């Protein structure tokens, strides 16, 4: 039985036992996969719980469902590890009400770039085949290759599904709620050894930090963003950018009188239009960089194939190091919501950090 079939059986059992009343999981479309919400046992077969493509971040879907009011029904959500970390992070920002939600997460084989998938379809089973052997497919996205947390982690979500280095998938609890759920399902918790597999990801990540870092200040950043359309799609797809309306789309601030354009052109020996392109990306880093989860959807969303995750992932990582904060991994308060009286002295005073 494939992993997907097994998960579907799991859902049906849960429906039958009355443990859940709804499921949110991916479902196939003609060229891709969407998220789907079902409320009936019969509809389970329409789902593909482990999809080879992540078109949206599942936590973003949960945000839509529970932002105004807690989930009315007992909802099982199937989320990738990055999505469940997003879920945890968004709970901290009051965007998701975790009540009545059970999150199941699994050892993630990675996903394929949505556009690549459209033209060269593949199956989840192919990707899963690699990780069962402790490997990784070459087709997956850059962000997936350098994923820091490719496995479910305790207290992030409720139920984990181990797939690495094992032919028989194993369930394990991530939270008390999950433990009870598995017990009610009559499922024995199991183990699998994924440490080496995770370590490889992290090693790749370290190398990636060094190799792909944007260097050279203005020139580096301009070259990196040279093909940017200023479409703000990276922001639209970013699950952490939960604002209703982005500050950088405020026309009252970013529309200017003509004199201003000409003055700029005078002062700066010519300007590029539209303006404020780099400011948008820097501003987004400042606003949400400390909470960048690393799902890489910004990069997938870019119509010009700018490897944006190199910008957000690498700078975000530096920011998170400053505050010793790992978004969505534990219950620490996000840096933007907190402060300490005795910290960050290297940023004070003349010529900070150099002394």
């Amino acid at each position, binding site marked *: 039985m494939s992993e997907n079939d097994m998960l579907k059986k799991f859902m049906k059992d849960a429906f039958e036992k009355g443990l859940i009343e709804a499921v949110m999981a991916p479902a196939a479309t003609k060229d891709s996969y969407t998220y789907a919400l079902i409320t009936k046992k019969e509809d389970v077969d329409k789902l593909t719980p482990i999809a080879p493509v992540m078109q949206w971040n599942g936590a973003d879907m949960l945000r839509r469902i529970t932002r105004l009011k807690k989930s009315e029904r007992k909802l099982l959500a199937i989320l990738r590890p990055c999505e469940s970390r997003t879920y945890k992070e968004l709970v901290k920002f009051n965007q998701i009400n975790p009540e009545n939600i059970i999150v199941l997460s699994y050892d993630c084989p990675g996903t394929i770039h949505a556009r690549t998938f459209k033209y060269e379809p593949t199956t989840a089973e192919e990707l899963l085949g690699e990780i069962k052997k402790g490997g990784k497919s070459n087709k997956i996205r850059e962000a997936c290759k350098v994923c820091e947390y490719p496995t479910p982690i305790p207290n992030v979500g409720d139920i984990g599904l181990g797939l690495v280095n094992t032919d028989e998938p194993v369930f394990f609890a991530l939270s008390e709620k999950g433990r009870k759920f598995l017990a009610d399902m009559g499922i024995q918790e199991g183990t699998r050894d994924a440490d080496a597999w995770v370590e490889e990801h992290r090693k790749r990540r370290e190398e990636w930090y060094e190799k792909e870092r944007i260097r050279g200040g203005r020139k580096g950043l301009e070259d990196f963003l040279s093909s940017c359309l200023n479409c703000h799609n990276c922001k639209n797809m970013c699950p952490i950018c939960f604002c209703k309306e982005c500050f950088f789309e405020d026309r009252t601030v970013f529309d200017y009188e003509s004199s201003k354009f000409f003055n700029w052109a005078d002062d700066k020996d010519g300007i590029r239009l539209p303006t404020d392109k780099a400011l948008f990306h820097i501003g987004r880093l400042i606003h949400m960089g400390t909470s960048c989860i690393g799902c890489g959807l910004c990069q997938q969303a870019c119509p010009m194939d700018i490897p944006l995750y190199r910008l957000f992932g690498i700078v975000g990582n530096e920011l998170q190091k400053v505050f010793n904060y790992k978004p969505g991994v534990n219950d620490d308060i996000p840096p933007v919501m907190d*402060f300490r009286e005795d910290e960050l002295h290297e940023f004070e005073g003349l010529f*900070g950090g150099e002394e």
Partner: protein
Amino acid sequence: MSEKKFEPVIVGFFCNWCTSAAADLAGTSRLHYPPNIRPIRVMCSSTVDPVYMIRALQEGADATILGGCHPGDCHYITGNYKARRRIAIVKTVLRSLGFDEDRVLLEWISGSEGPKFARVMNEYTEYIRNKGPSDFKYLDSLGGEEIE
């Protein structure tokens, strides 16, 4: 351009309760400091959105200073701690992208420290003068030295 010596423009965001008062005192005491400093009075160091500092650099400032109250002395109890976090974010972003983070400065100057205010302004202006112009202001433009 044939300027003999580079004269930077430095935008200062100064807390109403301390650094602005120190600037007042420097003025009352006639302590001269370079005219390169452009002071802006804000209510608290935590009023200053990091985007404002970035914007100042982009609009043509060669550096920015944020002046707040000494830790523990904030008039809004904890504003300066929050400001320090914001500065840490701005500086880290700049550094990570290969910009010069020293062009953003956070200083604690209390209301009675008029001479300290003048000293910091002098030292920082000299420091930036020696560094030369910031290329951040040419971001998204055709100007600057490196672009042909």
